[in-house]
Structures are given as structure tokens and as C-alpha cells.
């Protein structure tokens, strides 16, 4: 005899996740964004298979096939051709995906953590603490981001680690502001009052009651931020403040193309591959994350969403 299946009531968070996934499926731009992001994630994970590094070498250093300055067009050995100084472009863009992800994810997650900590303290304790912390964010936000980041990178000494650190220092105030706002809103709600009334500790209220409710807006900002962080990091690399020459990094590969904008007498676009290919990788990566973030924002915005 078959027992009637007990209907399990889904928890609200699972329901929320299912709702988000359904909305993503309904919007072609979100699907495009998600597809691009998945595509790049696969490239990053599969990099050792797609472009096997030479044994015993740092896999992030692009292999060189000679020292002639003139870039070579795509060929069977080098599917995307070579850059100036004969760095293999295919290898460079594949491993460059990992570099982009490493910087993007590291900067976003550390910035978000600092933002949660500082914004949480400011929004929960309010008063003087809030005032001081928010004036600190004001000062950092008083600078155009790229310019402050550039000054910090120069101060720390060029390199990808300096770029990462500089972007974290420039990036956390946005998250702190956001989390503070959410905390101010949520701590005024009845359920927080109730938790206080039954004697929950501050730590428990923050981590069990307030933070989980502030997490979705944070996710939206974070997903929109990955694109712009990778873009800024690439810009700093392009300016020559990034990794040493030959490191797999899109910004550097694009800067390699600066001397090859003018083609040969016969073909004005003889060196098209040196700027087109790394640029397209960077552009598509950023666009994928922007599309995904944009979709998430539309879906999670209570003003727009309809259940």
C-alpha cells in the first residue's frame, strides 16, 4: 500500500533561491550573463587541461617561443597567434582568466567581509561609533576610485598583490555603507526587538537575525562589483603597474598591443589579433558579470519584483 507522500514545507530560503533561478530562466539577458559567467568559470577551472603548462614552470608565466618583436598571426601551433616578444596569446588569455577570477573574487570577498564588519558595527551600535566610521568611508569615497588605487599601488610598489590590496582598500566603503543601511533598517524591526526581549546576545542577533536578511542586497552589489574590479585591475596592469612581463594577465596582454595598432603597408590590420583577442576576453568577462548582477538586482528589488 502506498503511503501518501508527506508534503514537506520548503524553508523560505530554498523557496527564495528557486524563485531567483526561475526568474533568471525567464530573462534572455540573464541567461546570456549566466552562460558567459559559466563559460569563463569552466575556462578558469580547466586551464591546466586547455593550456598545459610546461612541467616545473610557474603556470602563470606565459611560455615564449623566441624573442623577435613582431607578433605572429594565428597558426596551428599558436591558435591565437603570438604577441610582441613571442608570448603565446592562447596560453595567456586562458590563464589570464584565472588571474582575473583570483583578483575579482579575492577583492570582492575581502572587501565585503571588511564592509560587513565595519558597516555592521556602525549600523548596530549607531551613535558616535557610526559617525566616526562613516566619516572614514566618506574620505575614501571622496576620491575617484581608480586614481586612489593608482596612488596606493605606486606606494606599495607595482605588482598584482599591490593591485589586489589597493582595490580592497578602495572598495570596502561601498559595502560598509550598504550593510550599515541594512542594519539600521533591520534593527528597527520588531523581530530584532523580540530577540532582544528574550535575551539574545548582540552576537547572536547580528549573525542569526540581522545579517541573513541583509545578504541578498550584498550579493547583488558583489556580483556587479566583480566586473568593475577586474576592469580596474586590468586598467592598472595596462598602465604598467601590474605583474612582471610575461605573466598571464589580460591588462598586460592588451598593453602589449599598443605598439602594433598600425599594420603593415599591405594590410593595415595585420596585427588585429594582438588587441582583439585579449580585449574580447576582458570585455566579455566583465559583461557577463554585469548582466548577471543586473538581473539579480531586478529580481531582488522588492519594488520591481512581483510574486
Amino acid at each position: 500500500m502506498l503511503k501518501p507522500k508527506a508534503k514537506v514545507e520548503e524553508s523560505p530560503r530554498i523557496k527564495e533561491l528557486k524563485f531567483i533561478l526561475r526568474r533568471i530562466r525567464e530573462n534572455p539577458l540573464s541567461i546570456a550573463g549566466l552562460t558567459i559567467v559559466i563559460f569563463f568559470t569552466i575556462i578558469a577551472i580547466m586551464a591546466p587541461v586547455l593550456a598545459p603548462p610546461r612541467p616545473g614552470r610557474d603556470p602563470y608565466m606565459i611560455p615564449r617561443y623566441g624573442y623577435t618583436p613582431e607578433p605572429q598571426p594565428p597558426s596551428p601551433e599558436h591558435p591565437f597567434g603570438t604577441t610582441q616578444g613571442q608570448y603565446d596569446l592562447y596560453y595567456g588569455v586562458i590563464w589570464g582568466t584565472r588571474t582575473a577570477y583570483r583578483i575579482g573574487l579575492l577583492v570582492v570577498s575581502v572587501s565585503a567581509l571588511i564592509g560587513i564588519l565595519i558597516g555592521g558595527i556602525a549600523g548596530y551600535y549607531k551613535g558616535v561609533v557610526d559617525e566616526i566610521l562613516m566619516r572614514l568611508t566618506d574620505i575614501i569615497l571622496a576620491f575617484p576610485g581608480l586614481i586612489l588605487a593608482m596612488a596606493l599601488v605606486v606606494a606599495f610598489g607595482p605588482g598584482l598583490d599591490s593591485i589586489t590590496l589597493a582595490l580592497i582598500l578602495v572598495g570596502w566603503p561601498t559595502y560598509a555603507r550598504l550593510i550599515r543601511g541594512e542594519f539600521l533598517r533591520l534593527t528597527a524591526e520588531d523581530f530584532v526587538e523580540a530577540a532582544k526581549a528574550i535575551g539574545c546576545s548582540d552576537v547572536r542577533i547580528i549573525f542569526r537575525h540581522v545579517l541573513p536578511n541583509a545578504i541578498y542586497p550584498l550579493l547583488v552589489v558583489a556580483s556587479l562589483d566583480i566586473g568593475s574590479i577586474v576592469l580596474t585591475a586590468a586598467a592598472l596592469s595596462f598602465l604598467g603597474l601590474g605583474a612582471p612581463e610575461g605573466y598571464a594577465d589580460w591588462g598586460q596582454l592588451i598593453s602589449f598591443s599598443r605598439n602594433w595598432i598600425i599594420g603593415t603597408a599591405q594590410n593595415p590590420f595585420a596585427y588585429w589579433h594582438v588587441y582583439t583577442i585579449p580585449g574580447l576576453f576582458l570585455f566579455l568577462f566583465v559583461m557577463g558579470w554585469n548582466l548577471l548582477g543586473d538581473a539579480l538586482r531586478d529580481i531582488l528589488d522588492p519594488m520591481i519584483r512581483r510574486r
Partner: protein
Amino acid sequence: MRSYLIRRIILIVPVLLGVTFLIFAITQLFDPYMRASLYIRDPRQAKNIESIIRKYGLDQPFYIQYFRWLDQVLRGNLGWSQSAHMPVLKALITYFPATAELALYAIPLTLIAGIFLGKIAAVKKDTAVDHATRVMAIIGWSLPSFWLGIVLLAVFYGGLGIFAPGRLSVWAENLVLSGKFRIYTGLYTIDAILNLNWPVFLDALSHLVLPVATLVIINVAILMRVMRSSMLEQLNKTYVIAARARGLDEKTVIDKHATKNALIPVITLSGLLTAGMLSGMVITETVFEFKGVGYFAAHAATQLDIPAVLGFALFAGILFVIANLIVDILYAYIDPRIRLG
């Protein structure tokens, strides 16, 4: 209005102090010998570094150093730029006209294009026009400015042989520097008009096309989207329905009623636009070898010319704070809810 103005102007003092303090904090990463370069006006002074360290208290606690440094900054001494072979302030003043010329064309064009496209997208919501502007916004927002610059150069300069990088062609530059051409502002298009020299004017203008296009394409996206949503909000308000009910034609309703109110959030955004432009200048001027303050800063950064980079960051920070002040004042002027609230 006056009390709002005074309040708002007093409020920027702590922000400016904070901005200077942050730049000063960065200098503290270096040892006193390195920091001495921030106080030098002339490389000959470097022979006597110990006396500079003593004079500005570089071995003293940070608060004493901060006030002595701030004192120097207020006197216009930002240190010596090794990459430009001149004092940082002089370099900033020398390179500024080129940046001002880019901004003179890029900012109004961005505003006009953003407002126009955003308005059309809202009025023709959910049509092909709306979708096209949405795609344009996403592309503009995701394009790396340096890559866009390179591609534009490859197509127009490399491929078609027009729109060369730099500010002027060689012949025009020789003419401008010859002394027969009077420099009034340092903005070559304006100076050429004042000199009634049309060949130089056209030459300067053709060198502006690509960098201005790059700045506009990168910065217009956000403006366009904000204008669109603001316009949509206004079109759904009751006063618009009332205007239509009174029998006003659609053009009057949109242009005279809705657009004016929809512009308010766009004004707030112009502050942010200034920041985008300033950051964009660093990249755009570098790609197009357009010798403005952004080019100077990027060049100094690769040479690790610390006083120059910090001086530029301070300059950009102050400019951004002032731009936001102007935006706030404009905003209060237009919207009485702000100044009376």
C-alpha cells in the same frame, strides 16, 4: 538658500581635511629619506637631505609632520616630480589645459547624449529603441576604456589614416610653439579660434575626436539608465495624467513637464560623472598620448614618481569634492525640498 549654502560650504572643510590626511597617511609608508622628495622644490636641495628631514620634522611624530606637510601643501608646494623635471604643482598647471579641453567637449556631449537617449528609451518603453539603448548601456558599461581606445585607433588611425593620437600634428605643433600663435588658454581649439587660425583649429579638433568619443561611450551608459528610470517615474505621476487630460499635446507634456522633473536625479549623478571622467582621463590620455594631467600621472606612476602621483591624487580628490559641492548647490537651487528640508 544662503544659510544652506553656508552650511554646505562649512561641511566640506572636514572632508577636505580628511582627503589631505589620507594622502598624508600614504606618505607615511615611506622612510624619511623617500618622504623628503615631497618637500623639495628643486633637485639641488637633495644634496642636503638631512636638513630637509629636520626642517619638516620628518623624524617627528605623525601629527607634527601632518601639519607641517599641510602647511607646505597650502603654500602650493607638492614636491618635485622627477618624471616631469619640475615641481609637481607646476607640472599639474602645465598639463591641465589639455585635460580641460577634453572635459570641455566630453562632459557636455555625455550629458546631452545621456539625457536624450534616456528620454527616448523611457518614452518608447519596451520598443526596439528601448532595447537598443539597454544593450548600448550594457556594452558601454562593460567596455574597457583602454581597449576601446586601442580599437578606435586601430580602425581610424591605423586603417583609415585619420584621427592621429596626440594633441596636434607636427606642423601645427611647430606653428603653435613658434611664437606666431598666441596662447590664451592652452586649450588649442579655443586658442585657434582666438587666433583666427582655422587649419590649427581643425587639426586640434580632429585629434579630439577619438579621445572624446572614448570618454563619452564609457560614461554615457549610467547617465542614460538613470535618465530613463527617472523619466519613467515622472511619466507615471498624476500631474502628467492631468496635463494630458487638459488636452495638452504629447510633446508639451514630455518636454515641458516630465523632462524637467526627470532631470533632477541626473544632476545628482553629474558629481559621479566627474569622478568617472577623472579616472577616464588617466586611461584615455595615456592611450591617445594626449598630454594632460592624466597622462602625466600615469607616466609618473610607471616611473614610481611618488610626489607626482600623490599630488595628482590630491588634486583629483579636491576637484571631486568641489564638483560634488557644486552639484549639491545646483540641486538645492532647483529643488526647494533640499534647501528647506
